[in-house]
């Protein structure tokens, strides 16, 4: 095969692999496969071609003057990619390694955004490949303003006065001899000290820039200067968040707080610093924080809570937004905890979040309110949460119960009629948590006055009796005993379920007065009834003992 064809093949293989590298993450098997394939192919080609030297032109790559790649494409042009950066030659030595090919592709696959202040040439320079060499025409970036000739001419015009040279010579003859200066040759430990200092300075540069910015902030003479510093601090906050430098961010916010509490610092500066705090709690910043939280690689709950602790109330809305975006359960849990900690500063912000359309967000906000324990806000849930999702309504009902919102009795009573069993059961349990006479009567009335009660699922019915048994009062026990005496015309199985629930409830109330009644059913033919009766008898037996 002709040499140029082989080199063209090599370039095609390189271009194909470049596409794959751009498409897949490094840890993706497809990425590894692309590199393996490329290496296998180029090893084969190199055996036939030896080293490959490519001359780079704007629209073509040449080998020995012959085009081995050409393209007129404006955007995806392998030749122009190199040419525009000043690269004029690339040499691939036949000893090129797989790692070198991988890294080379990694460099040439970066887009403008990924390159930042670098370009392909500076990255190749940094990497300094052994088997991939490049030649650059630095004239590409030269400021062609003719300065060199102008400057050289200017300095050379100031020619040395020839007579002065001889004056200098005569002066030298009578000048004093030199006095030696003290030279201290550097030692090994000096090198070591420099290395240590270099590492230290890299580590502390963020602490230092924060200190410097504060120095400038304190020195700011007027509103304009303060605003300048606010804008710099805000940018720094963004940088620290985006790059996961939470420790430094906390340091910055801590310094802000200390400054805000310092009586010697003027109000204007304090106002400026508050802007920084507000920025740290803004939706943009908190959203940026989200990715760190989601992968949890550089974020722990303690840090996040400490961060949130420095923020103002505007952060609540931002965290609510973030809570709606997070992907992982664990990270949502972290943010729920944050909102629990800071939410009480502005309950209205939390309540406003309840109008969101995302059921999971609303449910989590209800959870936050429950964890905060604000009864006023909890009561408002009954009116403000309009979400149809069963999980949301269940959460609200649980909150009402947990926080014993007695004003929400009618809400719970209505919830007993809900379509979903899960909601009804939650309402029963919440009524039980209220433990008021009214709540008890609602439950009793619901069982007694509701003809369809008997047809409910056994588990649901049992919850009613279990919850009612919490009152441990005689009227409840009497109510339960009625079920054991009651005869029913419908299904025998449904009757037995009710009796089983009543027996279970009597056992939990613990009144031994009902032992004889229970014993009547100790050998009942229905296994459900028999089992519950036995549980109740054992329970009463323990009570008596």
């Amino acid at each position, binding site marked *: 095969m002709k*040499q140029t064809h082989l080199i063209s093949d090599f370039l095609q293989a390189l271009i194909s692999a470049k596409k794959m590298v751009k498409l897949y993450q490094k840890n993706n098997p497809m990425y590894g496969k692309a590199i393996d394939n490329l290496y296998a192919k180029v090893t084969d080609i190199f055996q036939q071609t*030896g*080293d490959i*030297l490519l001359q780079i*032109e704007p629209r073509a790559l040449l*080998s*020995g*003057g012959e085009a081995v790649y050409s393209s007129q494409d404006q955007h995806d042009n392998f030749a122009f990619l190199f040419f525009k950066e000043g690269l004029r*030659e690339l040499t691939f030595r036949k000893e090129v390694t797989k790692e070198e090919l991988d890294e080379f592709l990694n460099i040439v696959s970066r887009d403008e955004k990924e390159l930042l202040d*670098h*370009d392909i*040439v*500076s990255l190749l*320079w940094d990497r*300094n490949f052994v088997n991939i060499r490049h030649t650059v*025409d*630095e*004239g*590409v*970036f*030269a*400021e062609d303003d003719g300065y060199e000739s102008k400057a*050289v001419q*200017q*300095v*050379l015009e*100031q*020619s*040395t*006065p020839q007579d002065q*040279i*001889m004056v*200098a*010579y005569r*002066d*030298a003859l009578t*000048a*004093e*001899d*030199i006095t030696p*200066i003290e030279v*201290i040759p*550097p030692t090994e430990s*000096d*090198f070591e*000290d*420099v290395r240590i200092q*270099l590492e230290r*300075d890299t580590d502390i*540069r963020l602490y*230092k*820039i924060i200190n*410097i910015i504060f120095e*400038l902030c*304190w020195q700011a003479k007027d509103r304009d200067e303060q605003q*300048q510093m606010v*804008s*710099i601090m805000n*940018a*720094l906050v963004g940088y620290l968040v985006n790059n996961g430098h939470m420790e430094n961010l906390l340091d910055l916010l801590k310094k802000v707080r200390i400054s805000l509490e310092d009586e010697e610092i003027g109000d204007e500066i304090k106002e400026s610093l508050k802007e920084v705090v507000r920025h740290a709690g803004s939706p943009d910043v908190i959203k940026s924080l989200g990715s760190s939280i989601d992968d949890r690689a550089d974020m722990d709950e303690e840090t996040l809570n400490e961060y949130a602790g420095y923020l103002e109330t505007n952060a609540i809305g931002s965290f609510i937004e973030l809570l709606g975006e997070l992907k992982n359960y664990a990270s949502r849990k972290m943010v729920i905890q944050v909102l629990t900690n800071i939410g009480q500063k502005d309950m209205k912000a939390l309540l406003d979040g309840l109008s969101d359309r995302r059921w999971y967000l609303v449910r989590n906000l209800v959870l936050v309110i429950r964890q905060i324990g604000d009864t006023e806000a909890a009561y408002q849930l009954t009116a403000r949460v309009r979400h149809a999702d069963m999980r949301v309504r269940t959460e609200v009902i649980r909150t009402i119960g947990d926080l014993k919102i007695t004003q929400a009795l009618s809400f719970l009573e209505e919830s007993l009629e809900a379509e979903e069993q899960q909601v009804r059961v939650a309402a029963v349990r919440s009524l039980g948590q209220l433990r008021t006479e009214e709540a008890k009567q609602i439950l009793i009335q619901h069982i007694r006055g509701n003809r369809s009660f008997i047809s409910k699922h056994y588990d649901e019915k049992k919850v009613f009796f279990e919850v009612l048994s919490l009152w441990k009062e005689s009227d409840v026990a009497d109510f339960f005993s009625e079920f054991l005496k009651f005869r029913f015309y419908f299904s025998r199985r449904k009757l037995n379920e009710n009796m089983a629930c009543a027996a279970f409830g009597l056992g939990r109330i613990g009144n031994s007065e009902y032992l004889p009644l229970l014993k009547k059913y100790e050998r009942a033919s229905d296994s459900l009834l028999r089992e519950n009766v036995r549980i109740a008898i054992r329970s009463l037996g323990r009570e008596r003992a």
Partner: protein
Amino acid sequence: MPEKDDEQSFSTDIINGLAISLRTAELHDSGNAAVITQLEKVVSLVNEAVSVTGTFRIDLIGGFFFENNARIKYPLKHHIHFEYLGTKFKERNLGAVIFREEIVLEDLKTFIDAFIAAGQSDTPFETLQDAVSALAALEVDTLKTGKQERSGTAQLRRVIKKTYFNAVSLSKGVMDKMKSREAVSVKKTRRMVQNLVDFLSEEEQFLLGMTAIKNYDEYTYHHSVNVSILSLALGQRLGLNKQELTELGIVAFFHDTGKVDLPSELLNKTSQFTDDEFAMMKKHSTFGVKALLNLKDLDPLVIRSAISAFEHHLNFDCSGYPRVQMPFALDIYSDIISVADRYDAMTSARVYRKKAIPPDVALGLLIRDRGSKISPVVLNFFIMMVGVFPIGTLVFLDSRELGLVCEGSNEYIDRPKVRIIVDGSGAKNNYLVDLSEKSPDGRFKKSVIKRLDPNQYDINLAEYLM
């Protein structure tokens, strides 16, 4: 001759063709198919040229190619081929290739083989000439030059000089943009610094020599570049790796950017500053921080640059300016830049101080502040770098010769190379002596015994260093 938009692009094609053929032949051999294809093109071009002009010759004169005595101009994209071929010509002491009549492929192949073989010879031109002497159509001529330096070094030095002045132009461009609050490309600065890092490893002393020439009008821009170069050289001595050096070079380049926010009348004031003016001048450190942090999105480089912009006038003991409420240890980059900055500023004439401080005196002043204002470790390395007699020092030797130090010695810090301007007999002269040279008895041939202030005699260093 074929129709061409520009007649000279024809010669350009020949130069390119020769350069490409040679490069390919160096990798493979002249019988390689790719080389042959290229050579055939050159043969065709040469023959067409000969058919029009009769004898066709390509000369290399003063680093430039000429076609029948007319300078061949070329677009930037061909620069690399011209540079390459020029270097190869010089290495072989080859000054011209003359085509007397039409050639055949075999002629050119013979020339290419001989050209490559001559590269290995101690007498390259003679080797080449011998090899092509049998060819009727082609002959070669020697390089017409009086320079004593090796052509490779001279070529490199020309490139370094170009890079230096490009860097100064870049500095001006950057400062102008910063002044008008335009976006600044750090990419160009990075490339420039990477070049300087490369040159440092090959021609450190020449590069340092470039910083020693001070009598330019554009002090501010030269100063940024000089501080960057001095910092890089110092950083290299301190053992920084390539990436750290690049970072240091960029940080140093930006150290004075705060000055763009100072009134130009203050910067150009020819008399001493009043207290208020000096207070304003001192603000450039903090202005620099603001300018850099607003330059672009924050990143480690910008942050490091801002730190050094803030710290470069703070002393080792944290005195100096700007005053800080909470003293802290300076960044090592700031320690390095501070030494480079002081040295370059002291050895430069300023609008308010017409005479610069001689390099050796400036060094003495730095030594005076060792441990108080200046990091002792960094300064010790700096002295090793510039030597006891830095470039630009006017020295009198025990041989009664007067000269200017033009290059330091890596071996002996007190034995630089000196450009003699008055010889031992008291006559003006111009030659180089190396003070590290020893007599057969093992003693140094010549030593410095006295120093003088070159500025007192208006000696223009550029005449001797450029």
